[in-house]
């Protein structure tokens, strides 16, 4: 009888042992070096469709207290909402930099990617890197933007597209300029696109698009403008009388 109990006890212990959670992931080599700060090299504020990989990789660099690059430091990436990093952690190269490919999650909006490193004492240093995921409406807006808006609203020229921005008397606002664009209410934004600048006492150089674009398309453009604003656009929300 006692033997049965003993056997049962051993079995239970073994089961219990199997259930204890092992440390996640494969065991990692300890970092060879430690930095005091993470800085961004390139790849922030990119636009990509929800779930899709960003066009350019994200590159960060680990610096020491003097600002010199630190090779061999551990960098980790984290973000909310199903964002995938390939890879999500690793050691900086000889130039102190680390490169990862980012696929944003399935919700449209701005994602804050946290890149972090730890110094020798385990204290974490981190930066937040914003990236923009475009949903269906924002993607449609992005397409329409490249057809109708970008030539005047983007001062940058590319080999394929000469900017008309500086040829205008009024300065067309860049859509990424959140300080200006966020101050325009949803209603006014749609009205300017639809009825033109003159309808809102702004420059007539902004043509009316109400007969060129459909209501859906104008809404999509407005959604895109909201999505790319920097600093990010914070909708006012709906107010209700309290119960």
């Amino acid at each position, binding site marked *: 009888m006692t033997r049965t109990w003993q056997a049962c006890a051993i079995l239970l212990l073994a089961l219990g042992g199997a259930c204890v959670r092992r440390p996640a992931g494969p065991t990692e080599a300890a970092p060879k070096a430690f930095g005091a700060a993470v800085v961004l090299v390139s790849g922030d504020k990119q636009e990509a*469709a929800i779930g899709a990989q960003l066009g350019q990789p994200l590159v960060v660099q680990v610096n020491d207290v003097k600002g010199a690059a630190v090779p061999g430091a551990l960098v980790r990436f984290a973000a909310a909402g199903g964002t995938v990093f390939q890879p999500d952690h690793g050691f900086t190269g000889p130039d102190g930099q680390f490169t990862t490919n980012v*696929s944003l999650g399935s919700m449209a909006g701005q994602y804050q990617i946290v890149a972090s490193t730890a110094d020798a004492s385990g204290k974490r240093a981190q930066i937040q890197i914003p990236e923009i995921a475009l949903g269906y409406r924002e993607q449609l807006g992005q397409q329409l933007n490249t057809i109708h808006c970008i030539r005047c609203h983007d001062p940058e020229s590319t080999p394929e597209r000469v900017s008309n921005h500086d040829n205008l008397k009024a300065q067309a606002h860049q859509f990424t300029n959140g300080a200006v664009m966020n101050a325009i209410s949803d209603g006014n934004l749609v009205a300017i696109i639809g009825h033109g600048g003159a309808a809102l006492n702004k420059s007539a150089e902004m043509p009316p698009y109400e007969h060129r674009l459909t209501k859906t398309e104008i809404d999509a453009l407005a959604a895109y403008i909201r999505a790319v604003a920097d600093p990010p656009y914070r909708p006012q929300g*709906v107010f209700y009388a309290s119960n």
Partner: protein
Amino acid sequence: MKKLVNVLFGDSARAFGTLSAVLLILLAVVPAKDYFRDWRAYQKGYLRLVRGRGDATTLTRRFQPGLQQIWLPELGVVDRCTTCHSALKEATLVDVKMQPFRTHPPMPHNLTEFGCVVCHRGQGGATTAEEAHGSTKSWEDPILPARYLQSACGQCHLERLTGTPLLNQGREILAQYGCVRCHVIKTPESVLMTGADDPPSLEHIAGKTTREWIAAWLKNPQGYAGSATMPNFQLADDDIRDISAFLIAQSTPEAASSEPAPAVPTNDAAQQDGASLYGESFCASCHATQNAAGLLVGGNVGPELTRVGSKVKSEWLASWLRNPGIYDPGTKMPHYRLDARQIGLLMAFLGDKTDSDFIGNRHLDAATPIQIAHGKQLVNERGCASCHEINGIKKPDNFAPELTLVGSRPLAKILFAPGVPHTLPDYIGAKIRNPRSFGTSLKMPQYSLAPQQVDALVTALLAQTDRAQKMPAGLRIAARKPSDYRPAGKAGQLIEDMRCFSCHSINGRGGDMAPDLTWEGTSVTRAWLVNFLKNPNTLRPALIRRMPRFNVTDAEANTLADYIMTVYQTPAFDRDSLDSSRFAAADVEHGKELFYGKYACESCHIVDPDKDKGYIGPTLTQVGARLNSAWIYHWLKNAQTLRPGTLEPVWNMNNEEARAVTAFLMAQKAGPRKEIARK
């Protein structure tokens, strides 16, 4: 133990009592299981969530308890997703980030008309989260990852949609990279997808290039041109030797040109002149070259020319430049009508574009009959004739598996390579990225596509579903039928000879690089047109791709102009219906006010080169001599009806305003021609 049994089953009364109790408990299990179902917990969670909100009363009233179902027998949809996803249509819950209570982002369709699985896949009938989303390995139709969502649109929308760039790109790649030349893919309308690439015929290849070049190209096509669409067949060196031997051996001489090859000048000045002729002829509108920084500059209609001097033989290049249609009747390259001196200059310029590293010190000994026979066998095995015309080889039928229904391929029938996650998108992606990882004996070659291009291709292939084929015809947005329009007569021959359709579109046929000419005859004046055909000048300063000069004779220009003025006319109005001589000075003045004031046209157009800076639309300094007044008038009212897709906004001017602006523009007959400095 014995005691316990005695207590419970000691006599028949005890046994009866115990069994009754057990039976009762068992009976309680079923309602309890029902009570504790996932979805009930979610519905309670939803009610808790909305309770504290300002519009709680409305939300609670709209909430429907119990199992919910969207049933659409026509689409084969039985979706119970809304049982847990209670807030999909509640726009005021836009700030809620927690699933399953998020509201659905704005979309072009109504949820109750299409259900959920048509776009998102997954098992609509399931009532547990795990079964519905199917993240388990064995589940056949799991939720589609968000990055491929546009594939869902492609099930009904066979025409390009502005909102689905990835799907459009994927469909373009299917046609551009020759996928559809080996794989049969039928659209849901049962139309066979066809290639939009133009793989060259190899029937006269020996006249065009050397065996060494063929070998170097077969080894690594992207080593010759980074933009080459030909994939790498990963051939062994011996196989390359034999295939190149066979290709040279099967080649027949092309119809010999009677004209002797022009002298190629070798001095430095000739290089300069050649470069400027290359620029003036706008070769870069179609052909790309690598610049010093290694970036590709130029169009992608024709092949990249960075290393063309290492490829083509000079006699071939001379006859090609003289008239490309002789070697390749289907080419998009226009007949430039260059004279011998110009051909010599271009040959000097292009012949200098060599790369000694590409062919290297490759030297192939004379081919033996055994090698040639082996080469022929390899060409047959690899399916080269699926794309290229080769003497003595028939285009193989069904060379690769049909992909019409690849988007619904059951996972059970798929053999996954090691390391590939067991989902359909991952399988298709892995097949495209690295086909030979599924077996070294597979024939599919290695493409060099960017990750984003692979996503696009996967999206386009995932649209090829069973559901798409069975979709009610009324829901389908049909693809635009390709036009087989052919202009008639002598002018028609000229239009084909100069390959106008490579850039311009007429009656639905042709490219989109240059303006649509369907109604050009209503638009422009004959005098301007003749002049422009002989010497095209710049109309839109901001464009890089421009109309080249085709060196047409007076007679040819007149023939073309007559045809265009007579045939390409809109039925909507008569081009002479607005007599510009009747415009009064007051009209012109009023038009000027509108032009610079209310409509601010100068932000895109230039009328006065000293003052106006607009860089988007055509320069209007001489528009009165170029366009007909009736065309301008209707253009100002609604340009979209005249040339759909044009950038000109729809001004919707009233008759009076349109008339005044027309009067002002018609007054711009021959303004001072100033060179507008490029930015």
